[in-house]
Every structure is written in structure tokens, then in C-alpha cells.
């Protein structure tokens, strides 16, 4: 059950990857990368249920935090041309 759900999420992130590669504007690409990051968090949580290793929940939390910070940094770089 969890394996099938994980496969569906991986397939939908491949669709988002297509949008990230061929997006017309930069904001499509940022949104697609953000979607892929969110789906990666979900896949990590599902891997925790598949292999019954609760350590993966910690990794999923770290991935969620880093994904948020990376998106903020990327958008700020687009907006101002710098990180400050």
C-alpha cells in the first residue's frame, strides 16, 4: 500500500520535473522545484513506513526546513541580484 503511494508520488514529481526543465518563466521553475521538495518529504515519510525505520522522520523534517530556506534564498537572489 505504502509502496504504491510512494510510486505515485515519485511519478507526479517527474511531471513537476518536466515543468522545472521547460518552464517559460523563472517562477514556474521555482514553484516546480518547491513541489519536488515537498514530494520528497512525503516520500521520505512513506519510506519510514515501508522499512519501519522511524529515523527517516528526522530526515524528512530536516529536508522540509532546508527546502524552505533554499526557496527563500533563491527568490531573494532573483529579486535583488544578491543575498543581502
Amino acid at each position, binding site marked *: 500500500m505504502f509502496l504504491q503511494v510512494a510510486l505515485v508520488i515519485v511519478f507526479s514529481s517527474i511531471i513537476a520535473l518536466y515543468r522545472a526543465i521547460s518552464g517559460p518563466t523563472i517562477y514556474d521553475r521555482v514553484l516546480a522545484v518547491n513541489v519536488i521538495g515537498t514530494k520528497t518529504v512525503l516520500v521520505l515519510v512513506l519510506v519510514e513506513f515501508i522499512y519501519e525505520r522511524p529515523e527517516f522522520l528526522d530526515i524528512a523534517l530536516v529536508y522540509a*526546513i*532546508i527546502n524552505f*530556506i533554499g526557496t*527563500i534564498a533563491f527568490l531573494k537572489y532573483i529579486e535583488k*541580484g544578491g543575498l*543581502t
Partner: protein
Amino acid sequence: MDEVDEHVTVTGESVIVRPVEELYIIRRIIARIMVPLTQLYGLYVIMHGEGGPGGGFQGGVILGSATILYVLVFGVDEAKKRISESLNNLMKSTGVLIYAGIGLLCIIFGGYYLEYYALPLGHPEKASELGILGVEIGIGITVSAVMISIFFDLAERFEK
């Protein structure tokens, strides 16, 4: 909202000029919530390094990324009031001092370098656990300070 002042343009329209504190308000509020939670999570990763995934380096990176988020949202000048250059250098060297100090304490009490069983903390396994925890705290302090200073250097290079 009482800081909002109205400017009348040449064509007679009145334009509301918002103060800087109201710009990017979503980003600021989210960062104000996320920074302490991220720091708490970094401390959790450092403390549970011996029993789960993570450790000193990973927890230090998470601690540093909390400060990086603060710098991104509130600016370098605001962040340097909180973490100055000298405090950052002090944190870097303090972590190395903790690491090397615990290693040398093991030599003083008759073991090899970083052989925690030699520490006089009761049971040898208890001594080993506490020694690993101390070393990981040192690594975490150093890594977080190094991450912050790498980010400051990169941001100032982009600014030039």
C-alpha cells in the same frame, strides 16, 4: 498602521507609502516562527547524535541554517547586531577547544587521545556516552559558526 503616511503625487492622486516593517510581512512572520524552531531542532539533532541519524556536524549545519534564514529575511546589518564578527570567531575557536580539551583530558587520565573510557565519570560506558556528547557539542558550535561566516562572506562578495 499609524506609521502610514499619504503622499500626494503630481496628478493629484494620493498614494499610501508603507513603512519598511510592513514590506514582506509574510516572510518576516514565518521567519520569526521558523528560526527558534530550527534552532531547537538543531539542538535535538546534536543531543541525539549517538542514538539516531545526525550528530555534531549535521546539528551544527541546522543551527547555522537557522541564522542563515534570519540573515536572508532581516538583512546582514540586523544580523550582525545579534552575531558579531568577534562573537563568531569566539564560537569557532571555543568548539575546537572543547573537542581538543576532551581529547587531552583522556590523555591526562591515562588513556589514548579521545579514549573516553579513561575519563573518571563513574562507569566506563557512562564516561564514553558523556565524552561523545561533549565532543559533539564542540563540533556543533564550530560547524554552526563556520557556516554563518561562509554565508556572510558569500553575501558580501555578491554585494560588491
